[in-house]
């Protein structure tokens, strides 16, 4: 039985000694994370250190900032990567004092640190010195305490006096200065795709300033995962992050991190099943993204959004056959998948081929006919909502949003996992940087995903019957060694979906942090929308393709 070799995580090409030499005394100590070498630095040298790493060592991608509370200290970890090669990773660990958890902010080096540090402040309570806007992001402003700390009492009710909450929008309804008008788009608004609040300042019809206000759908996913056991109890949660059909990809993100942590090898056959399931999910998610985006630009009674939903339904049907569920698949297991292709296998292969080879090309023609060739659509989308590559990198945009800005990064190819390296497919990029490119990238990615699924189907069909191993041997209870840390990501439907886990020696994670792609992509909205019209703001928001369940977690 051959097993797929996990690619080496050695930062090949990254000269860690040169980094040490350049940083000199700033390096207090080093540690080894499973995914990357870690460098411990002082809390007041964050900005300086990160600037050096960004400018001189090409670490232009701050993938994630995870903060946590340890028995004797608070810690912030900056997970650095390179857009050119995301396997070159470096973790910058910034410990802070328990009594005075103040750390220098990285928001001036990486724009994306702004939201990540706000979240760390909100949930852990580390204060970031020099942060431009350090206030709560997921929880309401009136919240007391930081829920992911040990001394936080979950049973104590959050008492908010009626007086304090009499008019929750009071601060947002301040007098307009005469020139501009502040409007609250959301939390209940047809175009926010969920409960999102955009504080938009308009000058006439054009957007002067827009600030996303998130957290309405915060469901303590990280905390729930920290309370679940690795082996079985965490896997159902990822389905609930990006719940718009991308469930299997989310599960894979957790599976990949946990399998690295516990050193589990996944059988090759299971990898193919995972790859196929993930790509079916990606297609369904992109169809939904297309459908809802079209709603924002066309209006609510248009044919194309219904066609997209119709096509998604076909994928959904296949996924239902495969996993037994429509949305909350719960299909992956650590070390494999829940079950094999349903019997009769030929039926499933035929249905999938029918969709890939006959239905899909037809509906793609329809999409191009109705959407991308439509002149009014082009009028609305070309050169609107521009996200320059430089800004995209600063805000750590990933997935179709980044690829539409010409950033050629796709973890399926650049940080290979699953069965992707063995298959023949291409990474779709576009240099337009505008809304139109983002739509086109998604449309073409659906076609690439179809190619992958097609190849997986062929492989699965020809696989010898006695080698169909869907599950590796995994101990009933997983207890990874204490203080091992891993940050692992997969290419989600929206971008890099990463999981950071610190094991604490028990059968539940000590810290479980989700790097949500939609969260980072949403933070680029001001760049896209400011200066455009309010209608473009809505179109830009639609083109980012956010799922609030993933943004707020």
């Amino acid at each position: 039985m051959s097993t797929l070799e996990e690619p080496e995580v050695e930062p090949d090409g990254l000269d860690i000694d040169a980094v040490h030499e350049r940083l000199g005394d700033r390096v207090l100590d080093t540690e080894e994370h499973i995914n990357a070498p870690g460098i411990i630095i002082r809390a007041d040298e964050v900005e300086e250190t990160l600037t050096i790493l960004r400018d001189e060592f090409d670490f232009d991608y701050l993938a994630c900032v995870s903060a946590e509370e340890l028995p004797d200290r608070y810690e912030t970890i900056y997970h650095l990567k390179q857009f050119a090669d995301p396997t070159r990773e470096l973790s910058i660990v910034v410990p802070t004092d328990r009594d005075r958890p103040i750390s220098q902010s990285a928001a001036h080096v990486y724009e994306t640190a702004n939201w990540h540090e706000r979240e760390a402040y909100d949930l852990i309570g580390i204060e970031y010195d020099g942060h431009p806007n350090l206030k709560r992001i997921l929880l309401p402003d009136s919240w007391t305490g930081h829920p992911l700390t040990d001394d936080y009492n979950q049973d104590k009710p959050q008492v908010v006096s009626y007086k304090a909450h009499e008019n929750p929008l009071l601060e947002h309804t301040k007098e307009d200065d005469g020139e501009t008008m502040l409007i609250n788009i959301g939390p209940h608004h047809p175009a926010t795709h969920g409960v999102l609040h955009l504080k938009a300042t308009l000058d006439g019809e054009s957007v002067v300033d827009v600030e996303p206000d998130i957290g309405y759908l915060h469901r303590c996913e990280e905390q729930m995962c920290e309370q679940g056991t690795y082996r079985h109890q965490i896997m159902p949660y990822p389905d609930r992050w990006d719940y718009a059909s991308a469930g299997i990809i989310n599960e894979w993100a957790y599976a990949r991190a946990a399998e690295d942590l516990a050193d589990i090898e996944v059988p090759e056959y299971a990898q193919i099943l995972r790859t196929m399931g993930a790509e079916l999910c990606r297609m369904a998610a992109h169809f939904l993204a297309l459908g809802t985006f079209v709603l924002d630009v066309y209006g609510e009674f248009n044919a194309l959004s219904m066609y997209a939903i119709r096509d998604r339904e076909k994928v959904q049907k296949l996924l239902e056959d495969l996993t037994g569920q429509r949305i909350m698949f719960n299909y992956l297991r650590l070390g494999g998948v829940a079950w094999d292709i349903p019997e009769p296998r030929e039926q499933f292969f035929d249905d999938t081929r029918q969709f890939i080879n006959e239905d899909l090309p037809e509906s793609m023609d329809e999409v191009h006919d109705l959407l991308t060739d439509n002149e009014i659509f082009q009028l609305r989308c070309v050169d609107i909502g521009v996200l320059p590559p430089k800004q995209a990198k600063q805000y750590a945009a990933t997935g179709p949003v980044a690829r539409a800005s010409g950033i050629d990064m796709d973890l399926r190819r650049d940080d290979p996992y699953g069965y992707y390296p063995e298959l023949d497919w291409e990474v779709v990029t576009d240099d337009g940087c505008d809304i139109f490119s983002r739509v086109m990238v998604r449309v073409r990615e659906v076609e690439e995903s179809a190619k992958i699924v097609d190849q997986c189907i062929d492989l699965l069909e020809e696989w010898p019957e006695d080698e169909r191993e869907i599950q590796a041997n995994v101990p009933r209870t997983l207890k990874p060694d204490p203080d091992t840390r891993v940050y692992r990501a997969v290419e989600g439907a929206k971008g890099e979906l990463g999981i950071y886990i610190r094991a604490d020696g028990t059968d539940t994670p000590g810290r479980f942090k989700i790097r949500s792609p939609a969260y980072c992509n949403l933070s680029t909205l001001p760049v896209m929308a400011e200066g455009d019209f309010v209608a473009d703001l809505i179109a830009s928001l639609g083109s980012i393709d956010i799922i609030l369940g993933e943004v707020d977690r």
Partner: protein
Amino acid sequence: MLQAVLQTDTVLLPERLVDLLRLGEFGVVGEFIAGLIAAFLVANIMLIMTAIAGPWAKRKIRARFTDAIAVNRVGPAGLLIIIADAVRLMSKEIIVPEGVDRPAWELAPIVVALSALLGFAVIPMGSGIHVADPEVGVVFVFAVASLASIGLVMGGYASNNKFSMLGGLRAVAQNIAYEIPLVLVAASVVIFAGSLQMSEIVAAQQDTLISLGVVDIPMWFAIINPFAFVLFLAANMAEIGRNPFDTPEAPNEIVAGYQTEYSGIYFVLFYLGEFIHIFLGGAIIATLFLGGPAGPGPESLGFVWFLVKIWAVFLLTQWMRSAVPRVRIDQLIEIGWKGLLVLSFLNLILTALIVGVITV
């Protein structure tokens, strides 16, 4: 206006009613009562059509475009949904937000609905259904139809809501930009027909243009001047605020604009007004370009042909709605002022030249 009515040789609906109900002996009072009855009849025709269009036909048409099924549970082919929806809509609570400008806020839906209904007074619907036929019929119908924008801006401004405000302002900007081309294109038809009177315009389209064997191509202005017809269709889309020009509502941007704060029967009035506006647009198109109630068969079938024509225009609006993206407000204004206005002037001048050459 009454005098104008009496001067024409076509028999109008009130006159028929005077004869039918023997109201002649009451003099002017009798004519007035007959006029009221006629108006009541026409308004009810329009209300019935809206009732069919809004809750049922619109859903069914859209379902055909989008591979859906739409209403099919209540009654045969879902037709009883009309009654269910009417009861539902009328029994809803009227929520009056804080700080609205009450008189204007309550007047706005009535203005919108009434202005559209008023336009039908001068439309010849065939089979003798024609309430009034003033000499300035074309001017009258455009004048009352554009009263609706006052209703929209009233509703938008009085709602004390920023989305509504934006919607109201968009509505005004849009109507100004598109009414001028609309009237200019209509003027080219007037030049052809040589009259502003609706019955004259219809009469001018009765002749046969070319006879192709058994089929006679009538002298409809849509056939004589298709360019003007297309211009008028486009400007009409903007005038009635339908895709791709539904920016004043744009639910995904400004949450239905001027009607955000309306509920219950006020909301029904707004919706009614919009649908009647679509039908009025269809009626104007039918009268100016498609020969009004003209069609094969006996003259008494005129009303049927008229209905077919305005429902065809309604179908077109629903088709556009299913297939075309919404343009942005600045693009819309640009298309109006830089595109349609110039083209409609061109059309007017060309028409004037051609008509001048022919008559000389």
